[in-house]
């Protein structure tokens, strides 16, 4: 069974967030609630849709994840880069973390 998590962006800052295991939103993909069934996917999307309606986040969608030591990590490169930040040191004083090989 493919595992999924929900990602979106904060409405105000635009930064990437994930629907967390505690029902809140986290900027850490590792905090994601991991869905293991179509029913859970639908439930998570419903929660995310309500968060979008409440103007907490924007454009929520499901992503495929794998579980590493109990924490979610995106399966696809695009989502890995969203989760880890740009893979380049883009300015001398930049502080964004990089995790994608």
């Amino acid at each position, binding site marked *: 069974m493919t595992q999924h998590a929900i990602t979106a*962006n904060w*409405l*105000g*800052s*635009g*930064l*990437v967030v994930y629907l967390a295991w505690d029902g809140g939103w986290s900027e850490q993909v590792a905090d994601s609630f991991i869905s293991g069934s179509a029913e859970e996917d639908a439930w998570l999307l419903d929660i995310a849709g309500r968060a*979008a309606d409440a*103007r907490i986040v*924007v*454009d929520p969608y499901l992503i495929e994840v794998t579980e590493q030591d109990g924490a979610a990590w995106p399966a*696809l*490169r*695009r989502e890995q*880069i*969203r989760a880890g*930040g*740009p*893979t*380049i040191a*883009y*300015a*001398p*004083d*930049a*502080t*964004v973390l990089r995790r994608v090989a």
Partner: protein
Amino acid sequence: MYRYDRYDTQLVTERVSQFRDQVARRLDGSLSEEQFRPLRLLNGLYLQLHAYMLRVAIPYGTLSSAQMRMLAHIARRYDRGYGHFTTRQNIQFNWTRLEEAPDVLADLAKVEMHAIQTSGNTIRNTTADPFAGVAADEIEDPRITCEIIRQWSTLHPEFSFLPRKFKIAVTGALDDRAAVKVHDIGLILRRNEASETGYEVMVGGGQGRTPMIAKTIRDFLPKDHLLSYLEAILRVYNLAGRRDNKYKARIKILVHETGVDRFRDQVEAEWAALRKTGPDLDPAEVARIARFFAPPAYDSVDSAGYRAMLFEDQAFADWVRANVAPHKQDGYAIASISLKPEGAPPGDATADQMDAVADLAVRFSLDEIRVTHEQNLVLPHVRQSDLYELWQGLRKHGLATANIGLIGDIIACPGLDYCGLATARSIPVAQRISRLFSSLDRQHDIGELRLKISGCINACGHHHVGHIGILGVDRKGDEVYQITLGGRADENAAIGKIIGPAFASEDVVEAVETIVRTYIGLRQDGERFVDTYERVGQKPFKEALYDAD
């Protein structure tokens, strides 16, 4: 430089106010995302891979030092300390917060800048030769034309919802530094037999998934009729351009499917119906705009010291050779500032670097800066006698890399590191190539070589017109890179041809090395890479790349 009149000021100020209200309504729930998205895009605010990205228009790539300082302020105050100069002479800020976007636009308005029409199916920022007004080979300053087009096209009610985005470029020089032949409309200032100035009008160029070189539909359009002729082209496109398929909606597809002769007939018929007997614009208004671009008062310059330094400091001489171009005024020079130091993301500049360029522009370039579509900056009015001091000033800020037009001067789109549309990363590939060719001596030995990288088929990195073009694509989860050779964006524009199967990410840099070595082995005296390629064709490069297996 052009300065806003009360209409410009009112328009931009009102737009800031409108957008502030729109953002407030989005944040309080009065507007849904579906309702808000087109409004934010009209103001250049995209939701990209990591955050909101604000694209700011730099009309025809011309900036004052005050404007550059404001860009530095925005990078520092609202973003993460840097900005990305784009292949359309604009700048992008990658980490803008929605709540702060109206404040950014308000700050931009203070220095006569905005983000209007940097997105959407509108007429985008009209681009120009970055050496406009100072090039030794120029017929006329194209920025006068660009400013007229800017005023005409801004919020033009008929052309605010075109089938697709629409890009116009203008050059007034013999050497095309504006890539006009890969634009929806390319205008080249020409003189006719009576020595009158007008335009060669080209239509239907573009890159993306269907690259095409623009076709000439009028050899000579009198300058007086510029706007009515543009209007005729846009009307034909607006009515006949496809709206059912975004991949076939650009004017290049319409021109291709209609046939250039029939398309020309349609434009001419439309033009005959709408043109006036007299000029499109009041000549007094044209003269008013032209005065903003009048040549500055140049000094008489003693360049003896400059010439001496060329012999005394080899590093300075190398920089001059690559980065300094002839100026139309004796004793002056055009100095390009490379935003491609070894291993850096092409086109990125920190806030401190932007401030440094602004300071140097005040000291050495009559307060003027240009942005190039090759993601570099230009100081257009430098006394030759000031070049050494300028170079030293640039060195202090990592801005004196002597590689303009060389293999280290790579164009690269943001790619999958930032862009929501990208399918592969482009910047890391550019960085690896830049490091491989880190020796400036080697770069100078290789000579002019335009290498361009895109992270998807939309081709924002202009790979189709690179002497060496690299297109990153996703193949079953792996980034692979397709190489094209022989493209060029100059007056002899051509679309590069795919050399063979794509290379894995770990192999693509070595493939570039192989191509360069093959060229070095084949080149004859004075040949640039593209000359050698055009003489020998693909075969030896293909053999070197693939037959070794």
